[in-house]
């Protein structure tokens, strides 16, 4: 059997291999240097590549994001680590107004091949400022691509594709997935951006789920299987551009859609999936498409409240059951 490594190791390996291959690739961010990042994503990079290419920064999210865009225009391929997605709110102008738009407004005279990496989502009582999932904002921004791996295999293939992509890519690492293990080839490989993966085949209902929600849905699927319900799980992996064809093919097959999204409902990716499906697979749908998202609230600290507001395997299974019964 192939080597099984952790998500964070797969991500690190992908970055390392690209940095070995291409001297224009480098990492910058708070603590990416000797410390090797918050979750060890760049462990040992300063030994391998020096502090210039694994570059610690001040706590200056706006300048980090903008400097990465500027360096990218000059032929570098920066990986800018913004730590938590929550902190990217300080960098929105440089990400969404500058990096995303420079190639377009310059009429293609410049490129901005930056990867903006951030951790995302729920962890354990990380509370209001460290539990964000607002990637819908990035999806809403022309010029950006958005990538959310759910397995170690995807983590590596997608980071390599993100680095090689000539435009800015938002790469999101879910905190609950970082230590999950999975099979990962040693050699570098790309997973094309925009291509979904069918994480599980099924016949009764399609679940579109991303990041940790994919894993939660896998758990739910096992329970449901025992109850005689077969769900198909599509992980878009890239949320912008998303793989409309694969999602629609599945929905056309099962006739039912449940979008499971850790973001919020209103103008979120869940609504996007429901809308896209309603618009494009109306005839094939046996019932209204549905979504299950984090409840519309600032994230509370205390575990009972925190658990209450997020989707989890039980809640996913319940949502599927209620659809199958109606």
């Amino acid at each position: 059997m192939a080597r099984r490594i952790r998500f964070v190791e797969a991500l690190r390996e992908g970055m390392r291999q690209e940095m070995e291959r291409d001297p224009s690739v480098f990492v910058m961010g708070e603590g990416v240097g000797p410390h090797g990042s918050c979750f060890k994503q760049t462990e040992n990079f300063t030994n391998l590549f020096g502090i210039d290419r694994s570059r610690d920064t001040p706590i200056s999210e706006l300048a980090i994001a903008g400097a990465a865009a500027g360096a990218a225009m000059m032929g570098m391929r920066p990986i800018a680590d913004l730590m938590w997605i929550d902190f990217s709110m300080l960098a929105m102008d440089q990400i969404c107004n500058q990096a995303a738009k420079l190639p377009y407004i310059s009429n293609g005279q410049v490129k901005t091949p930056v990867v903006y990496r951030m951790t995302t989502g729920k962890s354990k009582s990380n509370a209001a400022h460290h539990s964000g999932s607002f990637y819908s904002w990035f999806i809403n921004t022309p010029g950006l691509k958005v990538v959310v791996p759910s397995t170690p295999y995807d983590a590596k293939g997608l980071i390599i594709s993100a680095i090689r992509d000539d435009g800015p890519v938002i790469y999101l690492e879910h905190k609950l997935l970082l230590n999950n293990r999975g099979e990962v080839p040693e050699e570098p490989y790309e997973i094309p951006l925009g291509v979904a993966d069918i994480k599980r085949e099924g016949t009764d209902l399609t679940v579109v789920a991303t990041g940790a929600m994919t894993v939660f849905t896998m758990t739910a699927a096992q329970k449901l299987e025992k109850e005689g319900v077969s769900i198909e799980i599509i992980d878009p992996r890239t949320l912008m551009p998303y793989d409309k064809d694969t999602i629609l093919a599945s929905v056309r097959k099962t006739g039912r859609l449940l979008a499971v999204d850790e973001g919020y409902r209103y103008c979120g990716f869940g609504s996007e999936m429901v809308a896209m499906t309603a618009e494009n697979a109306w005839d094939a749908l046996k019932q209204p498409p549905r979504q299950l998202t984090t409840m519309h609230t600032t994230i509370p600290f205390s575990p009972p409240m925190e658990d209450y507001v997020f989707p989890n395997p039980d809640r996913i299974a319940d949502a599927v059951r209620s659809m199958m019964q109606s």
Partner: protein
Amino acid sequence: MDTITQIRLLETMLRVRKAELQLAIMYKNGKVPCAAHLYEGQEAIAAGICDHLRHDDCITSTHRGHGHCIAKGMPIKKMIAEVSAKKTGCCGGKGGTMHLFMPEVGVMGTVGIVGGGIPIATGIGLAMKMQNTDRVAVSFFGDGAANNGSFHESLNLAALWKLPVIYICENNLYATSVAVWRSTPIPDIGIRGSAYGMPGVTVDGNHVDEVYAAMETAVARGRAGEGPTLIECKTYRIRGHFEGDDAFYRTKEEVAEARKRDPIDYWKAHLIANGAITEETFEAMSAKADEEVAEAAAFADASPYPEPESALLLSGNPA
């Protein structure tokens, strides 16, 4: 500084220290659901600054804010209960270690986003000024935050409008694993006051008397409507960035050296030397703080968790 003040400062420092050490234990015992950022070694700053504040003065603070809250008047038990995620906490369990509030004593929020509290304190000062009061606002933040745009924009605004805000930069030499010299190309952050035409001073943040003196001037200035002050307090982050951080990015020797400069030891020695207290008084004060903290921990322990559904109260959820 009179003897009563001297003793009160020591008392505050002890209360803060003991509360933090208690939380370290509670964290180890799984009673705190999330790694907390503890304040050990920086107590002289919270004590020296907040001693000048009235209940109707306000502070904003950071991820490392427990000590500021206590020094500003939040009962330790409300803080510990919050950090242990209990319903009786100062925010009913909604905020947690990085989001502590108690407006009735002027705690207007600790903030999980580095630098995020600085503009807020500036606005508090603006309100105080527009309301024609002599109240002052204080913003605590770290050396790391001083490189964020929020610092620059806020100090500029406060200086421009002569707001009664005192900016306290606790330079503990680290921002997570990043040493200050690897983020900040000047020796003293206090220098930055001059970029806004405001007084900027740098003091030894482990010497509560120095902190106290600098704040005395700053508060007087603020209350008199003369505008803001930047005070940099040099100190050291004794523990890891958060509980569980092994902090291998610095040497044991460096930490051991820093421990020798313990602010409580310094002040205790000073007070014993000048006859303000005896070793026995100190022991008694220490025991009293221990007792308060133990009671607070017991209170937190005995308190219930909030109801899950209460998550949606105040949420703005239209459903």
